[in-house]
Structure formats: C-alpha cells, structure tokens
C-alpha cells in the first residue's frame, strides 16, 4: 500500500471510529444513572422517633439515586440485628447503614462486614472509636448540654438533689458517651447521679416506677428518645399526684415534643437527626460511587429546646417534620 492509500484509509478509519463513537454516545446519553441499593437497619425502625432521620435519608437517596430500604423492625436484639444484615446482603444490598445495638465486641463483625459491603455506622459508633465511618450526634456534648440545662434551670431547687438517669441500651457507645458528658457536667457542681437505670424500652416503665418508689428522684434525666417517652408515660400514669420531679431528656419524636410543649419535659435536647440521616446516606453513596473514597466519622449538631423557644422560627424548622 502506498503512502497516499495509507493516509486515505487512515482518514476513513478515523471517520468511521468517530461515527461509531458518536452513535454510542448518542445512545448512551439518555441512559439512567445507575442506582445503588442500600439497606438501613435500625432498632424499632417504624417508631415515630425516626421520622426526621428517615426524611433525611429519603432526601439523600433522591439526591444520590439510591434505592433505599429501611428494614421494618421492632425492638431487636444484638443477634437479630446480625441476622437482618445477613438477610439484606442476600437480598443484594450494596451498602448497609446500621445502628449497632451493642458497641462492644462488634469490631470483628464490622471488619468482616466491611470486607463484603459498604458499611456506615449510624447513631452510635462502636468501640474502639473512629475506626469505621460513622454518622452520630456529638454525644458527649449532648450529655454536657443536659447537665448545663439542669444546672442553669432557674427553677432548680439546690437542696436535696436526687438525680435519676435512664440509660436504655447501655451497651451502645452513644449512651455511654452521653452519660459520660452528663456526669462530667454535673461533677462541675459536685453533683452525681443517684441512680442509673439501664434497661431496654419495653420493661423501662415498670422498672422506673419501681425505682422511683424506692428512691424518688427530684431530677430525672433520660438519655435517649425511647427512655424519654418511658419517663413521660410514667408521669402520665401518676395522675393526680403532685409532680416533684423535673424531666430533662434527649429525643425528637413528636410525642416528646408534644410533652415538651405541654411542659411535662423541662428541656429536650434534640440531635439533628435529619442531618444524621442525610449524611449517612450521602456518605454511603460516596463510598459506593467512588470505591477508593474513605468516609470519616461525622458528628451532627443538636438543639437544646424548651417550652419557650420551641416555636422559634429556626427551631420549628428543624423540630417538626414537613412530611405529613
């Protein structure tokens, strides 16, 4: 083949290549972005307290083209949770967002899980901390905020302070950290909890009633949303009796907000669960899209709300879910 012929066929070949490339591009330009399937495993996932979290998750799923599956659960145990995760993996979940029921001895399990799939820890980290990516509230600060709310309460009667603490899933690092922050804050004024109740929610109300009759507390602090609800239920059951106990709690369910509005709860610390949900799904989306990315632990902020500032423009936007 002579030189001219060579250049000519080169020209023809390149034009054909361009044509083919453009045709391919044209066909593919309208193709949908691929969707990832992500499963979320939560304790009592259908509970009201997760509304904001799920709203955030759904928003992030929309933004990142993720097919989200929040596994419907009641109160689950440490072993239930692992079974659920395995089942989700079998159902071809490409990523798992999980709220670990127990933060102890979970390291090995998470390590194993991380090999198989993308994992983001939600709500609570595991110990040791900061090894696996997690999206949690700033739990120590929440504890401190509770202590601050108690100590700065103008209605606080300083004599004979008896502090009861409702701790719920004590195996969760988040609970431990909140407790740690609370104790640290109280200790600044030389106070410490009189008793600490560590029980899951179903038995909580009964245990609380028993404890209160044994050692009545003038201040009750609940460290999680279900614990706050249990405490509210306890107060509700004590109708007719003069309330001498002030309740401070952590929570975000509409029930808790309602009783804050009613004045039953003095101060409610509300973790920004919308952000928690949004960021956890965004983080897993990033991990799924860019395999090499390494999400780090993120801490979301919280609000300290009481009856007076509940309806502040800023607060109500975060507190009340817009979806009906």
């Amino acid at each position, binding site marked *: 083949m002579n030189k*001219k012929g060579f250049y*000519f066929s080169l*020209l*023809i070949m390149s*034009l*054909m290549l*361009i*044509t083919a490339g*453009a*045709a391919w*591009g*044209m066909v593919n*330009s*309208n193709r949908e972005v691929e969707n990832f399937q992500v499963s979320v495993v939560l304790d009592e996932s259908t509970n*009201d307290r997760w509304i904001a979290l799920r*709203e*955030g998750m759904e*928003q992030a799923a*929309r*933004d990142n083209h993720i097919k989200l599956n929040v596994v419907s659960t009641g109160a689950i145990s440490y072993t239930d949770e692992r079974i659920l995760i395995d089942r989700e993996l079998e159902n071809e979940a490409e990523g798992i967002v999980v709220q670990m029921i127990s933060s102890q001895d979970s390291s090995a399990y998470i390590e194993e899980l991380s090999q198989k799939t993308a994992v983001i820890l939600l709500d609570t980290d595991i110990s040791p901390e900061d090894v696996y990516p997690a999206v949690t509230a700033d739990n120590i600060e929440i504890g401190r905020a509770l202590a601050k709310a108690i100590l700065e309460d103008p209605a606080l009667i300083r004599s004979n302070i008896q502090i009861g603490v409702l701790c719920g899933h004590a195996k969760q690092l988040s609970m431990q950290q909140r407790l740690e922050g609370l104790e640290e804050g109280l200790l600044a004024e030389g106070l410490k909890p009189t008793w600490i109740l560590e029980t899951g929610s179903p038995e909580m109300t009964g245990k609380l009633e028993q404890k209160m009759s044994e050692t009545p507390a003038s201040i009750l602090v609940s460290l999680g949303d279900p614990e706050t609800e249990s405490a509210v239920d306890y107060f509700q059951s004590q109708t007719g009796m003069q309330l001498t106990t002030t309740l401070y709690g952590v929570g975000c*369910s*509409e*029930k808790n*907000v*309602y009783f804050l*509005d009613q004045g039953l709860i003095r101060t409610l610390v509300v973790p*920004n669960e*919308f*952000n928690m949900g*949004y*960021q956890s799904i965004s983080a897993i989306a990033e991990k799924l899209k860019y395999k090499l990315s390494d999400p780090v632990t993120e801490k979301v902020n919280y609000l300290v709300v009481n009856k007076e500032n509940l*309806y502040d*423009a800023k607060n*109500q*936007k*975060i*507190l*009340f879910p*817009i979806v*009906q």
Partner: protein
Amino acid sequence: MNKENLLDKLNAYLKKYMKPQSIQMTIAVSFTIVSVACMGFLGVMMYNRFVNRMEVMKAESTEQLLNQTAINLESYLRNMRRISDAMYYSAIKDKDLATESVDPEMTLLYEANKDNLISIACYSGDGELVAAAPVSTEKEGLNAADQDWFMAATEQMENLHFSTPHVQNLFDNASYRYYWVVSLSRAVELTENGNSSMGVLLVDMNYSSIEQLFKKVNYDTSSEYVYLMDSNGEIIYHPRQKLIYTDLYQENNLEEAKLADGSYEEMFQGSKRLITVKTVSYTGWKIVSIVPMSSFDMGLLGTRMFVIMLMSLTMLAVILFNQLVSAQIARPLQKLNNSIKDWESGNMNPDIYVGGSQETEHLGRTLRSVVAQLRQLMDDIVVEQEEKRKSELDALQSQINPHFLYNTLDSIVWMIEGERYDDAVFMITQLASLFRVSLSRGRTIISIEDEIRHAQNYMNIQKIRYKNKFTVTFKVEEEVLQCCTVKLVVQPLLENAIYYGTEEMDGDGEVTVRGYRNEQDVYLEVSDNGLGMPEEIVEQLLTENNRVRKRGSGVGLLNVHNRIALRFGKPYGLEIESYPDEGTIVRIHLPMIPYTQENQEALEKGTWKSEKEAAHE
C-alpha cells in the same frame, strides 16, 4: 505589512504543496475539502441554531411552567381568600355573637374545604378565641395576639395577610400531631350585643397543599427545580427545604428575591444557572425556576453526538463518493496516459485506449489515428531508406572497375598487336557478355544462370589476364539455375578468391564455384585453396566496422551480404568458412525462388514475401 507577509507565506506554501498532482487526486482532494468545509459549516450552523432554539424553547417552557404554577397557586390562594370572605361576610358580619354562634357555618366551610385547611378560627381583638373548627381546645397559656399573623391582620386591616409556613401553635392535639400551615388572617368586625369591635379571622391553610402543588412541578428528578419564597426571600417551598433549614444546602434566595420578573443568568457556588422569576399576585410571593447550565448541557449531549455522527457519516459518504466520481473521471485519462507511456517506452505499435467521457474518447481516437499515421510515415521512410540503400549498393556493384576494364582492354590491345585475333575476339565476346549481364536491362534480380554466366565471363577474362595462374571449376546443379538471385554477387567473391586465394599460389590456385539446393534454400559457394584467414578476421568480415582493408573490386563482401539481406531478409546473405593454409569458402545463401516474371518483378519492387511470411499473414 503583516498581511503581506502572511500572503507571501501562503503563496510559498501553496507553491510548495501544489505540485502537479494526478487528476484523480486533485479532483478528490478539492471536492472533499469543499464538501467537508460545507458540511462542517452546515453542521456547526445547524447545531448552533438548534442550541439557540433549544435555549429559547427551554426559556419558553420554563416561563410557561412558571405561569402555570403561578396560575395554580393564585387560584389556590384566591380560593383561600374566598373562604375567608365567605366566613366573614356570610357568617361573622351578620351575627351578633352574644346571641348567635358562627360554629355551624365555620364547620360547614371547614368540611367543604378540609383537604386544603387545617383550621378556621376567629379571635377577638385581644386574642381570645371566639370560634374555631374543627378543634377548639386551646393550648394553655397561649395568647394568639402575640403571634405574627394576628399582628399583621390588625396592623393593616383592609387587607388579607398570608404568612410564611410555620407550625400551628394554637390547639391542643393529644395525638401529638403538629401541622405546618400558612396562615391567612384578616381583621373582622365582630358584633356583640350591638357593639362592634375588631377581631381577627384566621384561616390556616394546610402547607402540604402548597407542597403538593410544587412537588408536581418538581416531579422530574433532574437538577432543574422550582421553588417559592415570599417577597423578603424567606423560603416557602423548596424541594430541598429541610436541607436548607439544616444548612446542608444553600440557595441564593435572598439575592433572587430582589429580582423583578424575568429570566436571568447567575453564578452561584461556582455554577452557572438560568433563573426565571415570576411574582404571584396579591401575596408578592415569588416563584423561581432554577435551571443549571450543566443540566442543559447534559440534555444537549445526545444532540451533539447526533450532529457529530451525522457529520462524520456524511463526510465518509462524501469522501467515498468523491473517490468514486473522481476515479470515474480520471480512469480513462489514466489509461490513455498509460498507452502513451507504453508508446514512449518504445512500443511502436501501442494499443491506444479509447473510452471514458466524450472528450477522452475523442482524444483517444485522435491519438490512435496519429499513431497510425506516424507508423505509416515511419514505415514509408524505412522502405524509402532501404530502397535508397539498395540502389546505392546496386549502383556500387554495377560500377565497372576501371582498372579491370583498362587491364582487359589493354590485354585485348596487346592480343591484337600480337595478332592473336581469335583470342582478342574471345576476350571481347566475354567482355560484352559480362557487360550484358551487368546491365541486365537495369534489373537487379536475375536468374542464377545469368549470374553464373557473368561469373564465367569474368573468370575467362581473368584467366587470360593472369595467364592461367589458377584453375576454375563450375559445379552448378541444374535445378538451381532457374532461381532468382541478386545480380553481381558471385563476381566480387571470385575477385577476392583470385586475389587472396590464388595470387600468391604460383599457378596452383584452384577456384571452385558450386551451386546446389538444400531443401528450400539455394547455396552458391566460392572456394579457393589459398592461405585462408584466421577466425578473428572471418568474424569481422561481415560486420560494418571492420577495419580489414577492402580490396578487389572495391565493393567487398559486406556489400554483397547487405544486398542479399536487404532483398531477401535477414537469414540470407554470406557465410564464410576459412581455414588457414587450406583455403576459404564463401557461401551465398539464398531462398529458392523460381525465376519467373512475376517473382522477378515482386523482388524488384520489394513487395515479395517469402512463403513463411505469407503463411504468417
């Protein structure tokens, strides 16, 4: 100056690269360049037009979408105002609240519009609840007069006021429900026991109605969206409202709130976007549509690809087609050119191509006739030259060696003086016979018989002249006598034979003339017993440039050889065998052609063809 420079450069460049190319190349390249340029221009133009059209259409459709949304929202808000109007003018205004209740009307209105409403409530001027539907249990310790919607209504009593979305904080709902509402409030005149006072009528619209309205608009999940804000830039609806509330997403609402209706381009967070603003009547709310340019580009990707594909495909087709057309035009010319090249390289009988377009065909035909004419001319010239040469050679041959004539005449004179009259007569007779054959009435072709007679005459004269220093023998077969030969071919051989073969032999010279037939050939042989010649000389004898001195009758062997070859063709002529000290044989090789009038004339004119040639034709 610069321009000139550039022109010079261009000129130089063109000169450098515009060397003459083949027609096909020139046609293909120029066609291709022109068509590709046209296609490219057309493609770019069309693409630009398309993009412009798309942009206009996008802007139009966005505007239409916004107008539609605004109309829907306006009609929704108008409905809400109608509810408020109906409540006020048909119930509250006519009733004395001390004796009558507005509850039935209120409940009816609520029930009729409960999809869009959360509650209807009427408050007195100091914030006390007069009536409410569907729930009327107020929260404890609440003063409605402190709330924004209440204050707005009392501040400007002639208008209706729409609030921004907020959580309703009026009624106690033990099912823990909280509602996002947009409050529509107005000042009303309440009559109680004949006393009129000012109150506030509140219609709390369900925020999700507005949300639904906008969700429909934002249904498609692309990066384009529409949001709603009030005139101060406070967001009423945004597809990512909660993200904005929690600082996870930013919107340029405060800046955009300052814009009048219309379309703008803006840079926000490093990305260019097209925004369109539309104000909703009465409320001053603004609907804003955001179209990021990147989403626009994304939408155009397919089109861009299509244009590229179309262009490259067309170019491909055009190039191939051009190649075909140019080949069609150029191939006949190329073939013609190849014929000419063939001709140039020496083929005097080229096959000139005739075909292709009319012009090329004409060219081919003309060229073919030119070649034919040229060949004819050249053939003529060759014949002419041959003839000329023949006659030249013949003329040479026919010349009587004056020396020979002188010697012979001298001998005759001497014989007469010596009164040998018989001898003299013999000599003169021989000489006359010799001359007669030599002349042969101007013919070149004679019979072998005459030729041999001529040789005998010559030898008879020479024998007398050389006083019988040699003997001569003629052994000519009878059948060859009546064959054709070129005249005067034997005599020069005899002259040579006498000269070389016998001159130095002192009377022992023997010359033999033989004539015989071998198949279709005739041979006349002159042999002597002289000194002979070495082989090198023999080889040189029949070449043109021999340096061997020619002696004898001065015409030499070569002359004889050429004459025969010219007359009868290449294979015929002389063959020489010589053996030193033994003698030399010179053989004349002739075709056997019977000596007839016909053949003689044909040979004379050069139109005679051998049987082989005749058979070939």
